[in-house]
């Protein structure tokens, strides 16, 4: 606990000093020219864990943060139904396919693959947490190249929603989603992932966040993917 406080204090200090290492523009140059997508097809999450329930947590919470970053996104549940009709029961089946098929069939500029690599719940008497490891890879349906990627592993406290303080609207979501603790947690993880994503056309920050600095770890983490 003491450690956490120290980390928190240290991070506030570092944040205020602006010790960051890379701008969004330098990290993701493709997102600042005509390769930047207007529309993004979110492929239903690929779940590599044994926790079957984790898939839904991420699928139902990804549209909101991605849209709020300024991109047109399609409802994941409809996409899932379309895939099922085409015989695609698992998104892993389509991961290696040329992405041009998604431009042809959905008219989208980019596709986003989301992979859940870890979703490990730890229960304790007074405190619980979940270790979450995620990968996000966005590919252009024009060139098939990776235009944005992110991956991270983190431990999220599930007892007090202690991380919820970070973004104010997450708190209210946590309070109103009485259904389960894991919906707001997955949403929070998705929001964090898109914090490093250059903003799209529907955001007031469109083409205005290139100088926004992100820690190089975002990029480093992302390069672990391959």
């Amino acid at each position, binding site marked *: 606990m003491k450690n956490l406080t120290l980390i928190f204090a240290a991070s506030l200090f570092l944040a205020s000093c602006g010790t960051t290492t890379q701008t969004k523009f330098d990290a993701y140059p493709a997102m600042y020219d005509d390769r930047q997508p207007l529309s993004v097809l979110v492929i239903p999450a690929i779940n590599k864990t044994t926790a079957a329930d984790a898939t839904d947590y991420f699928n139902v919470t990804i549209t909101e943060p991605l849209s709020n970053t300024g991109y047109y996104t399609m409802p994941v549940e409809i996409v899932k139904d379309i895939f099922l009709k085409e015989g695609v029961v698992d998104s892993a089946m389509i991961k290696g396919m040329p992405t041009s098929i998604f431009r042809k069939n959905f*008219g989208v500029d980019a596709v986003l693959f989301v992979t859940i690599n870890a979703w490990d719940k730890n229960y304790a008497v007074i405190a619980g947490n979940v270790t979450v490891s995620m990968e996000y890879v966005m590919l252009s349906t024009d060139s098939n190249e990776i235009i944005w990627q992110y991956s991270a*592993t983190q431990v999220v406290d599930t007892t007090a929603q202690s991380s919820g303080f970070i973004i104010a609207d997450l708190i209210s979501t946590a309070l109103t989603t009485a259904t389960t603790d894991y919906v707001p947690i997955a949403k929070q993880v998705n929001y964090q992932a898109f914090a490093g994503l250059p903003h799209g056309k529907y955001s007031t920050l469109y083409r205005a966040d290139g100088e926004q600095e992100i820690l190089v770890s975002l990029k480093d983490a992302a390069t672990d993917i391959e």
Partner: protein
Amino acid sequence: MKNHSILLILTIIFLAGCATPNTGYYWENYSGTLYNFKKNPNEKTRARHIKELETIIAKAGQKGSRVPPGVHAELGYMLAQNGEKSTAASHLQKEADIYPESKTFIERIYLMLGLEE
């Protein structure tokens, strides 16, 4: 592994300190009602999620903001499954009007649902 978590925390705190991005969307409890419907698909949870989508649209109307992406499409899709075909079609059309880039996708939904275009 540990390094990544700490760096992530640092990043988040830093980013949170930056200006809040604004698309002006209101999402209400979209994720929550969708999750409940997914988890226990029945008439009650379906009706609840439809109501949430209608609330999101109404709220955007009140605030004069854009209806978030996919909301009209999802509502149209669910209403079509309920057999309310004309209301469904008008919502799908609205999605394509607000977001012209959704045209191919919306045409695909029309086909899948067997709706007249």
